[in-house]
């Protein structure tokens, strides 16, 4: 074996490895862009930045990571950007169930099928909140009062998760609600504190400070079982003290919003597998547990077929509500 071939063989092997990725051995070749489909400070932005910090801290990849915010159009800006970056495995899109819900109800130029699903992490729960000094103590009282006098329900965005849930409550509780869309859940929380609306269905983290501050309190959680016991929020109560809505006689057993992670379309399975592994590693760190606890979310990890069937199931359900309300875009 002469010198040339001794040099050429490994070189050829490296070249081959570069062009034909071997198994899950694909590694990012340039800086990775995390696209948060929300403005700075929003829940999805917090997730993207938390994941970025964990990856950087544990050096889970050699490439640097930058977070960019593309929250315009209720997140549509970020998804459209993901669609336009087809084939680029160095862009990771962080979103919510908006990815498949938004295309149903508004004419946005993307669909979730334009993206490659990586994982659904961290389910956010929904609760029914009322003003602290409201006379009703149970869901039943609330429904009775709402039946007598059409209530104003606030929420983030229009025809989005909050309004879908509002319409479900109307149907199950046999009441009529006026839905008033605000830009964010935080805004709705302030409007409830000021008594301008009667209730909203915020996620725990959106109203945590307000509950602790005694401006509003949760009546029930839209979850099959009570939330895990954490530290007390107010002097006497914590999340586990909030009854489920089913317990209280409002038959909506489960309504959650997954935080979702996507790659652009047309990436190879190996590239997708790399990010699935990466997210799994992130989820195993104590920092992740800390993030989940501080934002009062539920730790889940859906990927592959499980994630697909979750999307399909949710999509069917949303389609039904949207069709009833006449929201579907042609």
């Amino acid at each position: 074996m002469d010198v040339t071939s001794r040099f050429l063989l490994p070189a050829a092997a490296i070249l081959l490895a570069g062009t034909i990725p071997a198994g899950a051995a694909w590694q990012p070749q340039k800086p990775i862009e995390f696209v948060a489909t929300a403005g700075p400070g929003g829940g999805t932005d917090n997730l993207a930045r938390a994941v970025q910090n964990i990856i950087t801290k544990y050096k889970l990849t050699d490439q640097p990571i930058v977070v960019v915010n593309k929250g315009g159009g209720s997140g549509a800006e970020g998804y459209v950007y993901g669609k336009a970056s087809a084939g680029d495995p160095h862009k990771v899109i962080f979103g919510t169930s908006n990815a498949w819900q938004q295309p149903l109800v508004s004419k946005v130029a993307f669909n979730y099928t334009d993206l490659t699903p990586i994982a659904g992490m961290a389910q956010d729960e929904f609760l029914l909140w009322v003003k602290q000094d409201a006379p009703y103590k149970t869901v039943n009282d609330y429904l009775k009062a709402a039946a007598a006098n059409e209530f104003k329900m606030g929420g983030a965005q229009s025809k989005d998760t909050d309004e879908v849930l509002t319409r479900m409550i109307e149907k199950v509780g046999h009441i009529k609600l006026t839905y008033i869309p605000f830009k964010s859940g935080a805004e709705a929380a302030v409007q409830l504190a000021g008594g301008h609306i009667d209730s909203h269905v915020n996620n725990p983290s959106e109203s945590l400070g307000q509950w602790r501050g005694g401006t509003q309190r949760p009546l029930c959680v839209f979850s099959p079982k009570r939330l895990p016991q954490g530290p007390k929020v107010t002097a006497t109560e914590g999340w586990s003290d909030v009854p489920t809505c089913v317990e209280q006689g409002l038959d909506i057993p489960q309504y959650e919003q997954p935080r979702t992670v996507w790659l652009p379309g047309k990436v190879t399975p190996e590239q997708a597998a790399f990010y699935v592994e990466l997210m799994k590693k992130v989820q195993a760190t104590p920092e992740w547990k800390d993030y989940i606890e501080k934002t009062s979310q539920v730790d889940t990890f859906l990927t592959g077929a499980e994630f697909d069937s979750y999307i399909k199931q949710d999509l069917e359900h949303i389609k039904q509500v949207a069709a009833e309300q006449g929201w579907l875009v042609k």
Partner: protein
Amino acid sequence: MENLQELLHGFTIAVTVPHLVLMVIGVLLGILVGVLPGLGAPNGVSLLLPLTFGMQPVSAIILLSSMYWGALFGGSVTSILFNIPGEPSSVATTFDGYPMARDGRPTTALATAFGSAAFGALVGVILITFLASWVAQVALAFGPPEYFAVYFLAFASFVGMGGAAPIKTVVALAIGFAIAAIGIDTVSGSVRLTMGIDELVKGVNFVVAVMGLFGIGELLVAVEEEFHARGVSSRIDWKEVFRAVVRLPRHGIALLRSAAIGCWMGITPGGPTAASFMSYGIARRFSRRGRHFGTGEVEGIISPETADHAAGTSALLPMLSLGIPGSATAAVMMGGLMIWGLNPGPMLFVDQKDFVWGLIASMYVGNIVAVALVLLTVPVFAALMRIPFVIIAPLIVIICVVGAYSVSNSYLDVVMMLGFGVVGYLFKKLFYPLAPLVLAIVIGDKAEDAFRQSMLMSKGSLGVFFANPLVTSLVLAGLALLLLPLALQIAHVRRKPGERKSIAPGPEDRRSRPTATSAAQTPR
């Protein structure tokens, strides 16, 4: 005075060597991101945020808020020197700041702006110190009808008080509203006015619009009018900085009025942008030299700058006590609070006294540090004006292109920015005012959301705008401002035997009359 004691305790936390060092670092970084194209305070703060995770929350917030102050001051520099506002709230500063700088007085313009900004910030912090609990209550009283009334007041102050013909102001506002409507509509969730361009779903970014309207638009006018122009000769003179600051108290009334407007808009929470515009509009009306506004009047700089910083500072209070971020930067800081394990909300003032009062104390010290640092740099920045036009013009184009591109790494934004440049040029040539256009782009969609939310709440009845004393007085003040020029004109016409004497001041009349007067007005 319980609050005073808390504040003194806060000072013992804020005035320590490590925290003072953090303030200086924060302010310097802030000035840098404020002056550099396309960065701005929100981006700067997000870039710095990961570095703060290992810090004590109070140290972290001192660093970030100092950077915010620095960026606010830095943003005024480009507004005054190059007519490129970095933040929506510094747009109004360009109206008189830029003409004054072009006129060979950049040092005075910058020093005046910084001095009055510091005064505004100081009033804002004092307000927070003494009225924290009361102010939080005021903000809670604001529902959608009240929000709409505040925005209406801001728009009305422009129609009634702007220098241009009222009808031209209305046209500019209307174009602004149309631009603000592009993208996803909050209330219906549907996509509007994207004209088949998918990317427009995100809406038109403010930075893209103002860089074109002001930066490029002004450049086109300048190229046409004074292609031969040389740089402005300005001496580097420390005495001038000193003189400008010492002269500020002479405009005491303007300072106090603007600070009051700023604080009111900051806590209500109309925000710094509406505050600076309104303050400018009202100053133009009530200042003795109001008719000279737009040509480089000192009070034309004092009014928006004082109001901007008073509002920006007092707007931190709703963020801390209610969890409503008043600006994009405040939103990033709020994200930071959550990551540091603090929950913005009413309990922050009870649970986290050290943090809250440490921050408030640092706002006093941080603003003093910031103003000292920027005043020191005034002559350096002013020297930039001596660079000849042929060199500065391409630089401005580069700043605008890079700035527009870096908003969201989009080529479309660059094209739109250039398009806005042409619009800006046409507005100038046809004597249409740019300020109402920008105001409508920035708060037009918020005003629309608030109006439609109110209509949803009242099931379509306009009575909701007269439902309580707060909203009624806001709406009446707005109507008064709107009808003021008309009323004055009617009074004027009645005194002379005129052909319009018998016509009742109906709404139709309101629309047609200003056209007649605008034709008679000689464009400035």
